[in-house]
């Protein structure tokens, strides 16, 4: 499952070598606007906290610049190449995630399981129609689920739901009721359906959905060309009521500087899936036309240690690497102070099941642990790239921070272009990030469970896996929370991932945009609009 939904997460989508040029261009622009960045009350790092809200104009067209997935991108939500920006606008899921990270009704109004957590019954919303007029029923929901777990489709979410769902045990007793008999008990099952690969498509439309985009979402498709431009228009019969906008126009731009220039020149109103670097963010904020909105805690930054590679096979070395650095220092350098410490726990602060468990920095203890493991004066390489503007500063800050414990880090910068195919999950120590917005259960199972395809530290721990299994099979929510928190403590104490921080994504938007809201994989297409 994608570290991120589309482009910024999946390497094929942006030739990020050009990010370097983007930075240079932004600096050039910054140099020409000397008075703007440091003008009195707007001095650094005063970037706005949130987007403007208010009553929007009636209708209007929003223009969005997006990094294309590739020339092979598709509107099929279950695909690994789905054109992310279109999904939430065109489709709906059974269950969505609210701003606090809890599951909330979407096409399913309520759901319950039997006492064992094996048989789940979803009651579906009545009177919902697809864009082509067909009525939404449980047949569509069942078809969608069976399709996601079909191995031939190779959906990223298929590896998560596949072990749980047997296609022959998905039942539709009534048009308004869906029953799923799981293969193993799971009280977190609805949360797994909030994933963006789980958007509901019409029964039998699998072969055409990639180009038709027929869903039940607030917009319907007007035009779409893979890797190119597209247009979606308001679907007036949407069950939540029509969206504020008349239409959204999507423009594909692979180059980050081109996207920024388009915003500054007023050719687009929003840059999607782009975490602007601080220099560019200040240039954007200084402009009369554009500003910065934040997607809070949207980026989860990680320094994964491959637990199958020397010297990180030794848990004492992993602990030493964590004890040695000061997350505050990393945040100050890499995020200019605009983030929250991760405490090496991948679950974002403030979300359900999160624990505040943290181990204090202790360079002396780190030194002692290394000596004990026979790695005194440890010297290792830390790989980074220009893929994300934060990677390299994060790596450098980490290097400086651990020097006190006698750890010698050499930072190696590599091509952003092939970073996720050649470096990620291959080098023993590197920098990476994920989008937040996954339920804790999916996060822990997908990235930390033994053998999972996204287990980037190759960590394998039976006790940890056992905790996750027990949590899934536990009906009592408090007890379940305790188990998930125990699992997080194990990640902190023994796992291979260092999580220095969670950062806000700096999103470039026009000053005309109102009610922009995005958290995790949820983008509010219904309320976003333009200033009257």
């Amino acid at each position, binding site marked *: 499952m994608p570290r991120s939904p589309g482009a910024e997460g999946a390497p094929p989508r942006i030739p990020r070598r050009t990010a370097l040029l983007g930075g240079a261009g932004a600096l050039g622009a910054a140099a020409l606007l000397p008075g703007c960045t440091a003008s009195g009350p707007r001095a650094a790092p005063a970037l706005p906290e949130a987007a403007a809200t208010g009553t929007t104009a009636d209708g209007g067209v929003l223009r969005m610049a997006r990094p294309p997935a590739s020339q092979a991108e598709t509107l099929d939500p279950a695909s690994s190449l789905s054109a992310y920006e279109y999904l939430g606008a065109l489709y709906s899921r059974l269950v969505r995630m609210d701003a606090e990270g809890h599951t909330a009704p979407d096409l399913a109004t309520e759901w319950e399981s039997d006492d064992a957590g094996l048989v789940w019954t979803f009651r579906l919303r009545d009177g919902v129609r697809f864009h082509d007029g067909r009525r939404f029923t449980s047949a569509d929901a069942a078809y969608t689920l069976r399709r996601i777990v079909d191995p031939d489709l190779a959906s990223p979410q298929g590896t998560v739901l596949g072990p749980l769902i047997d296609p022959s045990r998905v039942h539709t007793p009534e048009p308004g009721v869906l029953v799923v008999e799981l293969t193993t008990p799971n009280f977190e099952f609805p949360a797994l359906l909030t994933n963006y690969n789980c958007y509901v498509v019409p029964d039998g439309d699998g072969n055409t959905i990639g180009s038709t985009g027929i869903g039940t979402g607030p917009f319907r498709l007007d035009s779409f060309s893979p890797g190119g431009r597209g247009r979606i228009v308001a679907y007036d019969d949407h069950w939540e009521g029509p969206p504020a906008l008349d239409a959204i126009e999507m423009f594909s731009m*692979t180059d980050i500087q081109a996207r920024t220039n388009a915003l500054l020149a007023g050719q687009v109103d929003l840059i999607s899936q782009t975490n602007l670097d601080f220099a560019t963010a200040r240039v954007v904020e200084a402009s009369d036309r554009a500003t910065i909105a934040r997607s809070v805690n949207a980026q989860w930054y990680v320094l994964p240690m491959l637990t199958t590679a020397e010297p990180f096979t030794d848990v004492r070395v992993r602990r030493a690497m964590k004890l040695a650095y000061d997350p505050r220092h990393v945040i100050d350098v890499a995020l200019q102070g605009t983030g929250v410490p991760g405490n090496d726990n991948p679950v974002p602060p403030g979300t359900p099941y999160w624990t505040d468990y943290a181990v204090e920095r202790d360079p002396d203890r780190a030194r002692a642990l290394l000596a004990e493991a026979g790695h005194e004066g440890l010297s290792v390489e830390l790989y980074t790239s220009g893929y994300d503007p934060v990677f390299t500063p994060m790596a450098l800050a980490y290097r400086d921070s651990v020097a006190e414990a006698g750890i010698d880090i050499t930072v190696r910068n590599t091509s952003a272009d092939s970073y996720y*195919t050649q470096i990620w999950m291959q080098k023993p120590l590197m920098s990476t990030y994920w989008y937040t917005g996954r339920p804790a259960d999916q996060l822990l199972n997908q990235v930390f469970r033994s053998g999972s395809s996204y287990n980037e530290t190759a960590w394998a721990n039976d006790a940890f896996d056992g905790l996750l299994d027990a949590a899934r099979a536990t009906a009592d929510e408090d007890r379940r929370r305790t188990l998930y928190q125990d699992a997080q403590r194990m990640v902190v104490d023994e796992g291979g991932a260092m999580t220095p921080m969670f950062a806000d994504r700096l999103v470039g938007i026009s000053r005309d945009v109102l009610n922009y809201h995005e958290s995790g994989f949820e983008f509010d297409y219904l309320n976003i609009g333009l200033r009257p």
Partner: protein
Amino acid sequence: MLLYISRRLLSAVVTVLLASVIVFAAVQLLPGDVATQVLGQDATPDAVAALREQMGLNRPAVLRFVDWITGAVRGDFGVSLVSGEPVAPTLWLHLRNTMLIAVATIAVAVTSSIVLGVVAGLYRDRWPDTVISTLTLVGMSVPEFVVATLLVLALSITVPVLPAVVLDEASAPVVDLLPAVVLPTIALSVVMTAYIVRMTRTSVIDVMASEFVTTARLKGLGTGRVVVRHALPSALLPTLNVIAMNVAWLVGGVAVVENVFNYPGVGRMLLEAVHNRDLPVLQAIAVVSAAVYVLCNLAADLGAMALNPRLRTGERSAR
């Protein structure tokens, strides 16, 4: 003459062939292959393996190359590994768009740089020369993307008269693309002009010091007539090659500038193909670029022949 031309044509074909071999080899050396690049990290290992099989990536590189080159000779550049669309129509579309910029740039750059070069040469070491030479040095030293960024800042953001990026796709009508051609043209002209100005200046200085110009002056001809009728044709001879090289450079894809302006030309197509390891597209662009390059040089040489009677008299004296 005919022998000369046919020999040049033969060497052109060999050059194009060599270029495609080298590009093919270089792409093999790029880390990562098209299956992993296309599917991204969202993909499962099984999906990657299946796609590799489906794309025929497991076959030996030599076989794949032979297949490709036999198709290319027939004008069939195969299908893109990424989009599954035939390469040729897309390539022609992007080539058309790049030609828009190229033609505009050549018109602007060649005209202005010859005028500037002649002025600089005639006013050698006086203030017009100093001003022109200094500006061309600056033009040569600043990378295109910096020029491009400054132009966007000035003419799209501060005074919004021209688009900063192209929102249209490659298939857009030429008329729609025209406003978007202006800034790339200026950016490229700045860089291109610099080289031609310096070449023209040097050659004007040389010619003006030569004996036939002195003779013409001694015959009592006015400066204007001496320059236009006698000096200029000779002065332009060495400049032609520089212009040809620049034209080839333009058509071969001004990748950086096209990327900055999101311009749907060959340069951006090339960047995306490299990024996706889309071999058929990459090969097609490389071969077409090589062909354009070779043709431009050929045209420059033939143009030089037309301008210089001595080159026309026979193979021996031409060499």
